[in-house]
């Protein structure tokens, strides 16, 4: 009998039963909810006259449509205010812990779960948000679900799912200076396309991945969905345990020792097999940018926009020409934030690059911390002053201009170099043109006022 993959081990442990020729009943350890994809699910519970089955395994925050300034004031936008208020009421009625606006733990759902130690190896984690794949960085099986499934989990702590296939993506070798984990995942997406991993659950492995910090690993797993994968995970190791130790909701004392023993078993057996395996060489990865309207349309920063009939619609939207370089192209907007790149390490990298420099006059540069805790930490380290002196605006936590549900939007026709995860048409506002990049590339671009290869600055 062949061995099991990391994914199989965690998944199989959580299957309660299997419907013949159908999906499995999968038990969910942690359920994150937010204001946008939960109200209809709570309504469903009310209609059925049932309670939340395991409120203590459910955690809520307000992140998607919250403003990033003046969070102490009532939300100006009526519909957003109503939606956030509805979340507050629902959490109260159903007994769910809410880290709402103003709370010291509020923030983007995929930032607060890990930093509070709610996210742990070997767990199943879901949220009505496709970037739930982020939590896979800890060796959890974590995936995004729709609102009907949110209702399933609220009602029964289970979700009906078919088991995905297994994919392994190995990256080996040493990264060049100025190359971040965001560049790794944009590189992989450019190689396997926006749908290349559909139907699969990815395990990232290899020496390059092993060498990454937890926050860098989260950036990789976060964008698994951008290749169509349901989720992506990384086997836990010393880096994982070190990160989790003493986090608020991580196991403590004897429980920690017991957990550690179990977590150390969470790796793919040597003789386990995958449905698809990709291998990449870190030395081929350079700072990456996207030129098109899905995250698979990426290229090396010094590359030329590829010529292909498939690109025509995207290039027309982006106002770009095949065969041209984007390096040196003026850009007026820079967004540093989102569940992909808004953690303290991202802010430290940005601050280290812009310290003592000034953003270009044409650029509006916005930095949105992923959570209240990240914001506090940034202030404690004096990053706020460095950013401010460089002309960057450090605002309050939320999803912000990643999806433009609040007022943080990019104007129509304008380019934005963004550390977020999606460059779809209109994603950052109607007509906005998004170029995805790493926090260092975004910071370098803000300083120069044009798309810049960060390797020239460090």
């Amino acid at each position: 009998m062949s061995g099991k993959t990391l994914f199989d081990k965690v998944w199989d442990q959580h299957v309660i039963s299997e419907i013949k020729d159908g999906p499995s009943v999968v038990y969910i350890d942690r359920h994150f909810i937010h204001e946008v994809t939960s109200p209809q699910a709570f309504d469903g519970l009310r209609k059925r006259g049932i309670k939340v089955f395991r409120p203590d395994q459910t955690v809520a925050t307000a992140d998607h449509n919250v403003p990033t300034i003046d969070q102490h004031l009532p939300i100006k936008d009526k519909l957003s205010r109503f939606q956030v208020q509805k979340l507050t009421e629902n959490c109260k009625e159903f007994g769910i812990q809410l880290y709402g606006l103003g709370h010291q733990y509020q923030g983007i759902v995929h930032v607060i779960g890990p930093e509070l130690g709610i996210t742990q190896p070997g767990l199943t984690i879901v949220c009505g948000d496709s970037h739930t794949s982020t939590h896979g960085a800890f060796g959890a099986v974590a995936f995004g679900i729709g609102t009907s499934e949110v209702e399933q989990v609220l009602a029964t702590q289970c979700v009906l799912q078919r088991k995905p296939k297994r994919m392994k993506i190995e990256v080996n070798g040493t990264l060049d200076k100025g190359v971040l984990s965001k560049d790794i995942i944009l590189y992989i997406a450019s190689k396997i396309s926006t749908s290349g991993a559909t139907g699969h659950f990815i395990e990232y492995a290899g020496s390059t991945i092993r060498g990454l910090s937890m926050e860098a690993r989260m950036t990789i797993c976060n964008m698994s969905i951008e290749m169509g994968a349901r989720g992506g995970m990384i086997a836990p190791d010393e880096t994982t345990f070190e990160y989790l130790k003493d986090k608020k909701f991580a196991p403590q004392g004897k429980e920690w020792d017991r957990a550690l023993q179990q977590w150390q078993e969470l790796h793919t057996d040597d003789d386990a097999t995958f449905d698809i395996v990709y291998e990449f060489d870190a030395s081929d990865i350079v700072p990456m940018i996207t030129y098109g309207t899905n995250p698979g349309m990426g290229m090396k920063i010094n590359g030329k926009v590829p010529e292909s009939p498939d690109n025509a619609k995207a290039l027309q939207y982006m106002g770009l020409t095949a065969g041209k370089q984007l390096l040196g192209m003026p850009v007026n907007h820079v967004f540093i934030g989102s569940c992909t790149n808004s953690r303290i390490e991202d802010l430290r990298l940005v601050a280290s690059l812009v310290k003592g420099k000034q953003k270009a006059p044409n650029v509006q540069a916005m930095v949105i911390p992923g959570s209240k805790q990240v914001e506090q930490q940034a202030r404690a380290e004096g990053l706020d002053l460095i950013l401010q002196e460089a002309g960057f605006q450090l605002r309050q936590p939320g999803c912000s201009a990643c999806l433009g549900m609040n007022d943080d939007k990019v104007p129509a026709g304008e380019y934005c170099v963004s550390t977020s995860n999606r460059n779809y048409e209109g994603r950052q506002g109607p007509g906005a043109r998004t170029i995805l990049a790493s926090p260092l590339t975004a910071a370098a671009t803000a300083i120069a006022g044009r798309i810049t290869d960060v390797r020239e600055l460090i």
Partner: protein
Amino acid sequence: MEPIKIIKSTCVPLPIENIDTDQIIPARFLKAITREGFGDNLFRDWRYHSNGDPKPSFVLNQPHYQGSILVAGKNFGCGSSREHAAWALYDFGFKVVVSSFFADIFRSNALNNGLLPVQLPEEYIQDLLKALQDNPSLEAVVDLPRQEFSVSGSDQAVGFEINPHKKSCLLQGFDDIDYLISQKDKILEYEQIRITV
């Protein structure tokens, strides 16, 4: 959920690949707290100018294309998990989306809302799109019990796959929550075992 059996309708062609859920329903329209009304903003930025005027070139603004079957390019529904995308399509009046490939989360969301994703071979879809261009009043038949898609007047049907569990849910109008609630004993038993391990 309304049961689905056989759907006979004209089709709306949308030959674009990788249609993400942000195009189907942009994030700024996700602020409602009910499932209804999203159809008004279906494909909002492809369908309307920023001042609200319809864009005549977009297929939903072309009166000769009507019906409850949307025929789209491959990798339909990628991106965000927003179920609002399925709600918007359904609310607008679509009962079936035909594509050669669907994103995973969209497929589940659609099935959970009585919107049938029909996956057909790419070549068949290309021929269908061509036929629709020549004849917008072409009717198609989606036969869920037989798992077949055909064009009216043609005796050539093409089969499509659907999970047997989901098929029976759609035929009966059942949803997964009813099923899961019926499994409560097993769930409690599982929790007990997990605690003692």
